[in-house]
């Protein structure tokens, strides 16, 4: 079971002290947070991708993730999410394969569609094509990592003739891919088709919805022959604010919750907590609620928490990380308890290399002339 955190990189005013971090501060705090994740023994750090204020998450996550990989030893770096709709799958193939080499395989990637309309036209796309873009773009990305030379034609980008995406995947094994979604069963179907991981956002919607999405994914994972339904690779989002005394947690978090960019000015903290995975309370309450997620999704592989959002100051965020670190052994023990032996762990690069029969270098060598590229008149 992998446990980690994800950030959306929002630069939000702190409603309590009225200050807002600069982009520089937010970016540096994000790296601090990732290093803290490794320090307290977490397995995964994932970043969002954004292209507009108020976000200071990277437009191209491998830039941030390379820096983090360079400053950590064990942490798996990932995304939440990489936009499979508006990015060119060729660049995704190249950049994430490069990250795979830089991080010695300590990475994977979670693909998402992005959820706001204005972003699409900035990249020449249309939100109405969201699902077809996710399907076509991933189909190409999947091939670029598995075939040395790709000739391809689709609807949303120019055709490729004998194209080689470089670098080739580390040890000849492509990065593991998760497909993330809040409410699109089509994405669960896509993840199942490829036998990739399915990550349910989980934090914005009621458990009953997440349950339906995960059940569909598991059912289809089995349908496509990747294993039994309970062996499908499932990840969930989660959200907490902890203090030793639960009343202190509620009191301190409420002003942040009440004006949060996502659900602020709406339901009460108590109502939202009862309807979603949000836990505001003591470490023990956090532990019990988090372990109850399995009641409706089954034993799963990855749990990521959002901790640095809604204007919480970095000092508070790091205190939250310390509390998470303290309860982590109990959380791991809870996940391990009663977990059947045939439930797989979350895929890692090492495990995938072993499953592929060992590492082999996949470098594609080109002779000197070819390396300079064809002249236009040769085409």
């Amino acid at each position: 079971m992998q446990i980690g955190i994800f950030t959306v990189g929002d630069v939000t005013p702190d409603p309590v002290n009225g200050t807002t971090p600069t982009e520089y501060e937010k970016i540096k705090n994000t790296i601090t947070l990732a290093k803290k994740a490794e320090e307290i023994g977490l397995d995964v750090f994932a970043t969002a991708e954004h292209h507009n204020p108020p976000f200071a998450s990277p437009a191209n996550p491998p830039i941030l993730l390379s820096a983090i990989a360079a400053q950590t030893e064990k942490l798996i770096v990932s995304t939440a999410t990489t936009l499979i709709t508006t990015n060119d799958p060729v660049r995704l193939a190249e950049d994430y394969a490069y990250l795979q080499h830089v991080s010695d395989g300590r990475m994977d990637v979670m693909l998402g569609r992005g959820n706001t309309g204005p972003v699409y036209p900035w990249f020449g796309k249309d939100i109405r094509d969201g699902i077809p873009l996710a399907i076509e773009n991933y189909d190409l990305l999947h091939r670029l990592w598995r075939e040395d030379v790709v000739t391809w034609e689709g609807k949303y980008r120019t055709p490729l003739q004998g194209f080689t995406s470089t670098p080739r995947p580390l040890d000849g094994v492509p990065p593991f891919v998760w497909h993330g979604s809040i409410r699109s069963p089509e994405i669960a179907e896509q993840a199942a088709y490829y036998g990739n991981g399915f990550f349910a956002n989980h934090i914005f919607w009621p458990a009953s919805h997440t349950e339906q999405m995960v059940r569909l994914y598991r059912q289809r994972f089995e349908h496509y022959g990747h294993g039994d339904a309970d062996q499908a690779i499932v990840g969930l989002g989660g959200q907490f604010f902890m203090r030793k005394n639960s009343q202190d947690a509620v009191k301190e978090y409420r002003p942040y919750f009440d004006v949060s960019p996502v659900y602020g000015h709406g339901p009460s903290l108590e109502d939202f907590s009862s309807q979603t995975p949000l836990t505001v309370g003591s470490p023990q309450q956090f532990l019990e609620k988090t372990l109850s997620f399995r009641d409706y999704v089954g034993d799963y592989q990855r749990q990521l928490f959002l901790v640095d959002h809604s204007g919480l100051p970095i000092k508070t965020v790091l205190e939250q990380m310390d509390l998470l670190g303290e309860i982590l052994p109990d959380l791991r023990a809870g996940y391990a308890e009663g977990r059947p032996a045939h439930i797989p762990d979350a895929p890692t690069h090492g495990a995938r290399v072993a499953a592929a029969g060992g590492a082999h270098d996949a470098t594609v060598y080109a002779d000197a002339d070819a390396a300079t590229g064809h002249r236009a008149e040769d085409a």
Partner: protein
Amino acid sequence: MTRHIAVVSAGLSSPSSTRILADQLASAVEARLFERGEDVRLHVIELREHARALADNLLTGFPSGALAQALQTVADADAVIAVTPVFSASYSGLFKTFFDVLEPGALEGKPVLMGATAGTARHSLVLDHALRPLFSYLKATPVPTGVFAASEDFGSNAGGRLAARVDRAAAELVALLDGPSARADVPPARKLQGSTEFDPDAAGFLSFDKLRG
């Protein structure tokens, strides 16, 4: 068989003339169905009770407890009676919000009897310039006669008898219940509860082959 009729009232006061009109429409429909020996269950939804949950739903994207039930009641009903007060020359915001958060497809092919109330008869066209386009957009089947009641209708017969209009509309709704469903044989665009989306064996399920086109 039992006919389930959802009665949606957006009246705000108690008693409200909107609720009174809704009750008259519901009673008339019930009486006509009883006459034919059919059982009827009326499910009255007072939107006032869901006002806060409706605002929350706009922000969170999902309905909480009692509102989720109310939305499901409408989705499961054989027909809907929907009545709103006229605010600023149209349906009230509360009324519209309820239909805004209803899952697309929930009203598809469903007979809807529309009603509206106002302080003056000069608003009577609201049924045809506001409510009818709304329900057409939602692919419901609005009955030809909508019932508008101004303050004067509750105290006199000057504008033609309200009871006669109510009865005519009720008859039209009941007739639609007998007709072939106008629901097209296409999957609803997006419907979360009890939907075909999560059922791989349903005709509307988008399997990967269909997704890839």
